[in-house]
């Protein structure tokens, strides 16, 4: 086991998969020189044919990835969440719908790597955390890792998956560190994490926190603080939102009877809303208190640091929410 930085874990996954499978290639803006950091060294190792800098036309290259995948390639596309709006046509009408619409005739092994920058003064146009919108649209697998190991293992799974996967990469975690198993210590010599399996970061009996992406560290911090007070909190990271491991969530709520959901996306029609609605339907009889959502305020991301810090879930908000369910 070695401690690794989140963004380097992305890079490792890309390198390993590109070495393993010639049909994997990557395209995006300024990736040759790795302006955003995850594609370091790829051009040198894999050359111009497999590492492509695109014109600034996301709709065209997001769609070109679909077309290339339809005829046998495995494209990885680098982008920011905020640039997905201009490419929504291809994401929805083609990437998400094509397989079903054509009766399963074609597999589309495309990975869209969508970085979510927020929390650092990027303002309304560059701070989108849009996975709930894509969860509403059938046909997309949606991944939101919260640690370097998950990032690496889920990215490798995503690249091998024969379906369209959107990796929501949380920019607030890019500099974070965590243990990543070394390949030589792993059963098959590589780190692959299956989709649809939540990760339980803390076990507990008094309350459950389901936390997503960048909210996970805050949830863990809250749980640890509560543990010191003698309150035993379970923390679950679903890791993939589509498919969602609802069995783990329901089992935890069955044990604790209390649920708080921490989600950095906007709170209306959020992943938190969805998880709450599942538990309110399928886990209702376990519940001993209201389900509390701790998600972003329903405003755009203001630039001013004085305001931006008020928007997202924090340890304090999560603490207050857990306490309210125990009151």
């Amino acid at each position: 086991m070695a401690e690794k930085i989140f963004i380097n874990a992305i890079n490792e996954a890309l390198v390993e998969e590109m070495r393993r499978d010639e049909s994997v290639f990557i395209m995006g803006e300024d990736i040759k020189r790795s302006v955003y950091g995850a594609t370091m060294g790829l051009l040198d190792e894999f050359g111009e044919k497999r590492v492509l800098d695109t014109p600034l036309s996301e709709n065209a290259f997001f769609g070109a990835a679909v077309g290339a995948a339809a005829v046998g390639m495995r494209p990885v596309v680098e982008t920011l969440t905020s640039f997905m709006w201009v490419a929504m046509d291809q994401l929805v009408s083609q990437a998400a719908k094509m397989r079903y619409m054509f009766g399963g005739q074609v597999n589309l092994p495309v990975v869209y790597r969508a970085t979510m920058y927020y929390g650092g003064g990027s303002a309304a146009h560059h701070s989108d955390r849009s996975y709930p919108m894509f969860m509403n649209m059938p046909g997309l697998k949606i991944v939101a890792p919260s640690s370097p190991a998950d990032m690496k293992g889920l990215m490798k799974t995503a690249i091998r998956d024969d379906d369209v996967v959107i990796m929501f990469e949380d920019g607030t975690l890019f500099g974070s560190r965590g243990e990543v198993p070394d390949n030589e210590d792993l059963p098959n010599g590589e780190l692959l994490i299956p989709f649809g399996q939540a990760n339980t970061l803390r076990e507990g009996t008094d309350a459950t926190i389901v936390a997503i992406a960048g909210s996970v560290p805050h949830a863990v911090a809250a749980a640890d603080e509560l543990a010191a007070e003698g309150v035993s909190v379970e923390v679950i990271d679903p890791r993939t939102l589509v498919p969602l491991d609802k069995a783990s969530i329901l089992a935890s709520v069955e044990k604790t009877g209390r649920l708080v959901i921490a989600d950095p996306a906007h709170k209306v029609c959020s992943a938190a809303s969805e998880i709450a609605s599942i538990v309110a339907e399928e886990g209702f009889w376990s519940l001993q208190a209201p389900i509390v959502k701790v998600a972003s305020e329903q405003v755009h991301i203001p630039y001013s640091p004085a305001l931006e810090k008020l928007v997202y879930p924090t340890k304090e908000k999560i603490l207050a929410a857990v306490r309210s369910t125990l009151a």
Partner: protein
Amino acid sequence: MAMDKDLLMLMLRRMWLIRHFETTVIDIYSKGEFGGAAHPYIGEEAVAVGACTAMKDTDYIAGNHRSHGHPLAKGGDPKRAMAELLGRVDGYCKGKGGSMHLADFSVGILGESGILGSSVPVATGAALAAKIKGENFISAVFFGDGASNQGACHESMNLASVWKLPIIFICENNQYAVTTSYRDTVSVEHVSDRASAYNMPGVLVDGQDVVAMHEAVSVAIERARAGEGPSLVEGLTYRYEEHSLGLGRVRRGEYRSEDEIAEWRKRDPILIHEKRLVEQGIASQDECDALSADVAREVEEALEFARNSPFPEPEALFEDMFANPIPQP
């Protein structure tokens, strides 16, 4: 370009196939045999047939909402196309796609797309794959005069040009988008004039002449296979029927005259091609008529086949979403 009789007759056969297919479709739609939208290709047959007969099975096409002509021109099976229109399990998409979403990946048909301009990036991606793989298949995409104004077309043409991708952009200029003349929405005289904005050849072709289309697309394909990049080919053509079956409100007198329709009908693509075959002594009119009758039977059989195919079972609803399925939420 010297063309052998087989090729010329294949062109005629496929044009007749589309014509009979569409006539049948209009007939059964009017009788309520299926619903939704369906956009007849009658009058425009030479565009798809001229283009697709210039391609190989290993080449790819993608198309749009006016969607029956392209796959039939590319060698798609009328049986499975018709079954798809009727929403049956033997349809190309097992009934999930319907009229606007025919696809047959086995003969290079990447699929028809109902959103305007939306299949253009996809076709561009197939061409990108050819380049990365170092294989010499090409890709082509059909879109309308109206759709040419979509951003997706601009972005894809630019991308294809800077990367020198083997793709042919084929604009089917049938003069109108629903009720709107392209002269009111396209800022240049001809859509093909825009090719210069992407540093690629732009060719204006008589879209009623299947041989002219075939030749223009052949030149573009040769260029594409030689690694010289994309071309834009505009076929000037005309839609005889109204925009879509099921769109009852469109009254053609309001936006185009009967005279105009009559003028274009004089330049019917099948008429033009048969005349050429007869005049050049390649085939007799009887041969042409026999071919047409033969194809008409093929379409009848297709309809029979489609009608006999069952509707999908309820379980099918949840199938085909993913290659690696996930539980329903």
